[in-house]
């Protein structure tokens, strides 16, 4: 898409922005989402649209509902007894919160990476092929090809290509996390959910993960929960600020971090609470 800015448009405050909002494609539409843990109302009436092939960051203090929100997108909350979600999350024309959704199929399209790297106690190769076998791919040549492709995409191939059959637990924390990302993208999902993917890692591994996120954006729509403001501002296109279960503000990252509309957002970003 090309946008021509002409002098005649100057009367509109910011024509490029307005244009963009109209033309952006959205992958997820969240409508009136409420999530409860038993009596506890964890997420309040959230309404937001997630852009396709962009990085959306969810920020906010601990317990604000951002992880709960993230986990509801691939129905990971189903594992938690007495968690329940109301409202709609539209994905490819269907409300994925419906009871008759095949969550197993859904999770193949909406993948998730967790805060603590959780490779299976198996070889690097098997960590990837396990995921593929869950999806029913068994052809050896095909498996090898996807393993290499996914490890390359996760910027891990060069580091592990000589020891694919060694234990994944021998990798460093940062490598393990990239392996978990590789394992997830091996299934070719359309949405990647990252739950504080680098908070347990050292700064160098963190930088690698961030670089990776920026690269993956081309092929995937990414939603990342982070406690790290700098990370949010570096990697994301849009940022949502959650507080006590409410979506306080959701806007372009540059705007959130320079001139947020809400006082609460400004206070949080400048470190006055949280």
């Amino acid at each position: 898409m090309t946008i021509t800015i002409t002098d005649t448009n100057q009367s509109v405050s910011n024509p490029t922005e307005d244009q963009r909002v109209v033309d952006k494609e959205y992958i997820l539409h969240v409508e009136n989402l409420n999530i409860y843990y038993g009596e506890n109302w964890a997420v309040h009436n959230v309404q937001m649209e997630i852009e396709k092939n962009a990085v959306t960051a969810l920020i906010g203090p601990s317990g604000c509902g951002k992880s709960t929100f993230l986990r509801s997108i691939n129905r990971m909350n189903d594992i938690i007894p007495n968690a329940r979600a109301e409202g709609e999350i539209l994905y490819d024309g269907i409300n994925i919160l419906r009871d008759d959704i095949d969550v197993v199929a859904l999770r193949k399209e909406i993948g998730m990476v967790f805060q603590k790297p959780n490779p299976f106690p198996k070889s690097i190769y098997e960590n990837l092929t396990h995921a593929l076998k869950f999806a029913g791919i068994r052809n050896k040549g095909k498996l090898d090809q996807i393993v290499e492709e996914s490890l390359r995409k996760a910027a891990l191939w060069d580091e592990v290509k000589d020891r694919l059959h060694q234990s994944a637990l021998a990798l460093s924390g940062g490598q393990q996390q990239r392996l978990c990302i590789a394992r997830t993208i091996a299934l070719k999902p359309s949405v990647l959910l990252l739950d504080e993917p680098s908070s347990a890692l050292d700064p160098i591994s963190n930088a690698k993960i961030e670089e990776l996120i920026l690269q993956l954006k081309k092929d995937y729509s990414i939603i990342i929960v982070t406690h790290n403001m700098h990370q949010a501002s570096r990697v994301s296109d849009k940022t949502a600020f959650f507080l006590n279960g409410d979506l306080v503000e959701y806007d372009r990252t540059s705007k959130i971090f320079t001139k947020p509309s809400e006082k609460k957002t400004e206070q949080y970003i400048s470190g006055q609470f949280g």
Partner: protein
Amino acid sequence: MRNTTELSSHRLLKSNKNRKDSELKGNIIVKSSAIIIITLTIALTVFLSIKGLQSFIKNGINPWDFITGTNWNPTSETPSFGSFNFIFGSFAVTMLSALIAAPLGIGGAIFMTQIAPKWGNKLLRPVIELLVGIPSVVYGFIGLSVLVPFIRNHVGGLGFSLLSGTIVLAIMILPTVTSISTDALNALPKNLREGAYALGATRWQTIKKVLIPAALPSLLTAIVLGMARAFGEALAVQMVIGNVSDFPNSITDTAATLTTIITLNIGHTTYGSIENNTLWSLGLILLVMSFIFILIIRFLSSRRKI
């Protein structure tokens, strides 16, 4: 000026005054307990070894014949001491009972931890832990009054049989296998399960491909511990197995194990006699076997850290 080298008393220096009495007491209690346990273990091993080797050294029985011989007839004119049938009996009931208890126990553990954790932990777990505490004589008595007649009427033979011993032992070790397997599965990091689910694994795929392989060393340990218990059990087996020294030709045939022969005969043999000495030798075989079981468990649990 620095003049601090030769201070003989200072609040930061170690002194007997600073060491509290309770500290000393605790130290003594803990250390003496450790010494007593170590001494007991060593003394027991040495004593059993000396007694168990008597029949070979003093009475001149060939150890090879003793282990491989199939004729046990200590009271005849020309006594023979072949204990192979008992060794076989012990291994047979142990293996067969493990074969029954392992799938049931691990299956039960999976049910309790993965499928119905709520009432599994609340109801099933305490029940199973209770079963561990039931004395073996009770198991034996139930086997004798229910199982033996049942097998006699519906399967065949006398009822007293290898099969009865196996079933009684399987029921006895089932709680052990189940509760250790449950602990093993509960000890798995929670994020392993989440990771599998997030990759679109079904519940059964998660259990089969991720959780069981991850817990395998501990699950094997659970089975081996159950086997060790089955191998050493005497009373319950003795009540249902028939205690005949002949080689069992079928699973419904009567048999005997190392433990049942010892408990049956140790009371009426003269101390120091050749027959008495051979019973000690059987005991030594049991001890060696339990060492082997412990070594297997050690080996399996050390693999867990990889």
